[in-house]
């Protein structure tokens, strides 16, 4: 297999991670550590598949995967923003819920194929012009529409966070909600909107797995990818373009890991599977030691803001 076709697969393997990582970045930027990503992906994957299976309509399936993710995120938002519950504990509960929900409703679809209309719709499409660029074209522009949607999300998220007033306010809230509110920003509204969109992205990540990446519905669709996404947010130091590189790197590791199993190398396969997490720990330590503020986690990450508490 050529390098270009390997990287083409790595992009595909990293796409679900990329969606979920973008979602988690958005949530963390506004100060909410959501450990429910895995659950949100599961909900998106199962709802997307069921809608796709029943209607055979690809766009409807994707839409419902995204909606399901944001409904799940609404639960999280309600409990952590309005009812001020601990974010870590709420996120973990959401993951337990999402995994249970997906297993419960997905059990009767295990082993079913994605309908042919949907498979055809999400077949790799070569973008005229860009797809003909040697190497880069084959890696990035001979992919499914769903993958192109993820590129669009990266661009939009990067622009939103860096170039718009809304994005600036969002980051402001993550760094200091007290000052943000004093400055006239509606903290609660911003948090809700960001977290709902974040859930949407996680749902899209789950939908990609069940509708495009897998051709048959498996027992556990997401299988821990949501947790890798949480790691990836740190690995990419809260930046959307870096998340893209990181997602494809982790995607490549995933492919290498499964392929190595057949080669009987002296190094353990599991060393490869553990590598993303070890790398994340290293990044976590390095960013903490680094004095530069823009590389750090948002200052209020994981801490609920409540005006009356001051």
């Amino acid at each position, binding site marked *: 297999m050529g390098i270009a076709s390997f990287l083409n697969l790595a992009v595909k393997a990293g796409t679900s991670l990329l969606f979920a990582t973008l979602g988690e970045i958005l949530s963390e930027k506004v100060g909410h550590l959501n450990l429910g990503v895995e659950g949100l992906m599961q909900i998106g994957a199962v709802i997307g598949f069921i809608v796709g299976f029943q209607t055979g309509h690809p766009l409807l399936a994707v839409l419902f995967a995204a909606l399901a993710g944001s409904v799940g995120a609404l639960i999280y938002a309600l409990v952590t923003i309005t009812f001020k519950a601990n974010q870590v*504990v709420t996120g973990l*509960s959401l993951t337990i819920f999402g995994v249970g*929900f997906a297993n419960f409703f997905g059990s009767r679809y295990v082993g079913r194929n994605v309908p042919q209309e949907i498979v055809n719709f999400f077949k790799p499409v070569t973008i005229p012009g860009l797809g003909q660029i040697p190497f880069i074209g084959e890696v990035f522009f001979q992919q499914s529409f769903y993958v192109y949607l993820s590129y669009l999300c990266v661009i939009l998220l990067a622009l939103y966070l860096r170039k718009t007033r809304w994005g600036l306010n969002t980051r402001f809230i993550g760094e200091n909600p007290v000052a943000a509110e004093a400055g006239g920003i509606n903290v609660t509204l911003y948090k809700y909107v960001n977290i709902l969109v974040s859930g949407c992205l996680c749902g899209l990540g789950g939908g990609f797995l069940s509708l495009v990446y897998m051709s048959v519905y498996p027992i556990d669709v997401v299988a821990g990818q949501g947790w890798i996404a949480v790691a990836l947010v740190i690995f990419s130091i809260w930046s959307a373009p870096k998340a893209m590189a990181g997602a494809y790197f982790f995607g490549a590791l995933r492919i290498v890991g499964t392929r190595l199993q057949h080669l009987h190398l002296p190094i353990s*396969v599991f060393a490869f599977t553990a590598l993303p997490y*070890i790398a994340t720990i290293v990044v976590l330590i390095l960013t903490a*030691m680094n004095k530069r503020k823009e590389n750090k986690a948002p200052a209020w990450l994981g801490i609920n803001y409540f005006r009356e508490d001051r």
Partner: protein
Amino acid sequence: MKFKQYGVAKRGETSVQLRVLVTLSAIVLALLTASIILLVAKSNPIGVYVGILQGCFGSLYRFSALLEKLVPLLILSLGIVVAFKMNFMNIGAEGQFLMGGVGATLIVRLLPGLPAPVLLPLMAVVAFAFGALWLIPPAFFKSKFETNETLFTLMMNYVATYFVMHLQYERWKDPAASGMPKIANFPENALLPQVQGFHLGIGIAILLVGVVYILMNRTKTGYEIAVLGASENTARYAGMNVHQTILKTAIISGGICGLVGMIQTAGPSGTLSAEITGGLGFTAIIVAWLADLKPVRAAVVSFLFAILIQGGSYIQTAFQIPGSAAAMIQAIILLYILGSEFFLRYRIIKSGKRVEVA
């Protein structure tokens, strides 16, 4: 348009009655919500709830199975209580549990011939040490560079999982298991004794409730942990060695979680595997939190959760209702209780005057 203005204010101490009332309402609402979801899926909610209870109290055997589910959950939550009390978010109990299992298994493999009264305590000590060792790096970097311990301990879980998979599939794979990726079962002398079908684990769990209670409420260390958890600055002004207290707490918390690795491998599981935790390390965090970080309450909450876990596995085998139904119900109850705590911490006040809204 005219709206009445509502506001919220902090409550002082809450009465027991209010606490019980709010929590019970949350559970009732959660069960109603779960019933709707079950009805949508064309399952009979009453049947599911009765089935869950039958699976726990229907026979002595099922009751002992319930206690078997309770033991790891309770001990893990005790370990977590210690760390959370210091405001140290140890969500790495899964990993510490697994590494404790590695420690216990290592001793069994190195010294299989020792008599049980020597072997079992030695396994417990090493499991404690391995669990502690797994929490020391996050604690060290937290106290030195303020790394985020939530994320650090989370990552350590996966490193532990893949390390155990490496042992299970490669290094310690049992050649006698005809190709099955499994570590050999422990010999008889490395298994916890049973009394009438009940493992010794339940005794250890009850003992630990007392130990952690005394540690947190009656010792200097417990006091230091609580002060540091409330305010790091206060702890510094009081002249405490913050760095040392963080490390000490990590050793206790990680060690207790590691001990579960020994109890499970030498108890119900009979050997080590990557699936041994079953996500309990995460559930235990929620238990600790709902118990308000109090050891005795953790026992009560763990018991209630163990009912859902044991009941879930029972309805799966007995009625072919997916066991995930129980996991879903569990999570719905959790989310409602988490939300309801707001009403214990704050009260809603009507500010008398009406405000004009254009």
